[in-house]
């Protein structure tokens, strides 16, 4: 587990360095994610080695958002000042974006014939 964690942190570290050195629009951890996919393609054994630790962390991905979430409370005065407008903008745009994005994905999947029967919900 320590070896796996060290490897994961190393990928993040290299990602952070590349993100800053090359002035990429992506944050370091996302660059690290891309590098790790590439590394797993080149060496599938790496994926087997990291899988248990990665699954453990991803199972509780929600936990890691809690401290930043509490930060919302610290911005309460600004949020309340524009309360109704910001709340409706966030709720309305999120509903529209999820619906439009999912329907566009589904429509193009049917159109290009890339329907994946194994990826269907409630499949018979």
């Amino acid at each position, binding site marked *: 587990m320590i070896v796996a964690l060290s490897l994961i942190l190393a990928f993040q570290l290299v990602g952070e360095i590349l993100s800053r050195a090359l002035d990429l629009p992506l944050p370091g951890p996302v660059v690290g994610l891309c590098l790790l996919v590439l590394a797993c393609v080149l060496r599938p054994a790496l994926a087997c080695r990291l899988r248990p630790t990665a699954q453990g962390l991803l199972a509780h991905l929600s936990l890691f958002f809690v401290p930043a979430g509490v930060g919302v409370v610290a911005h309460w005065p600004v949020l309340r000042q524009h309360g109704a407008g910001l709340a409706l903008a966030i709720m309305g745009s*999120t509903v529209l974006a*999820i619906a439009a994005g999912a329907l566009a*994905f*589904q429509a193009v999947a049917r159109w290009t014939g890339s329907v994946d029967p194994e990826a269907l919900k409630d499949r018979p």
Partner: protein
Amino acid sequence: MTDPALIWSYLAQGPLLWLTATLAAYVIGDALFRATGRQSWANPVLIAVIGLAVLLGATGTDYATYFEGAQFVHFMLGPATVCLALPLYDNLPRVRRAFWPMLAGLAVGSVVAMVSALLIARAFGISGPVLASLAPKSTTAPVAIGIAERIGGQPTLTAALVLLTGIFGAIVVTPLLNALQVRDWRARGFAVGVAAHGIGTARAFQVNETAGAFSGIGMGLNAVLTAVIAPWVVGWFG
């Protein structure tokens, strides 16, 4: 016996108290989430955040003190993001086959998220820095903050709006896509990743591994696309 006030003043200085409180709040949130049969409205992040906010208010603790302890949990966001590589790698053949649907979902989801948010906010008379802070709210927090700085927004306000978007998206995605009868896990995951970044992705992983993998991709791609188009869109809203 030592005066309880002394014990409190000792605990209030170190990270142990708020680190423990953060984990305990999440464990309670997760237990309630399971107790409701994994209903999306019982979002564990939301429950934990409300519990901790009440606790901070009751003990008169400010956010900076709280974050001294909570930063260890916050730090794990980075390594956890790197770990999204594994479900992505495991789903790689499936991802290759879904190139065109992903492109469509990304373009439509990303543009609709930004333009509709700005239109609604402008209808309520919101303008200037607050409007610019709202534009990148669907992208993952570090990218959103970077974009907000570049287009004249307030980074801390953006961080709060990003979090609220994620929590709302994670709560609304399941009933919304059930109502629209979208049965493709790839489409469901991808759309919530584009619109509600990592918190949406966390929700997707709670439901289905394929949805989680596609959600992680949606989050990453939207970070890039929003960084590119946000300056134009906000400039257009002037």
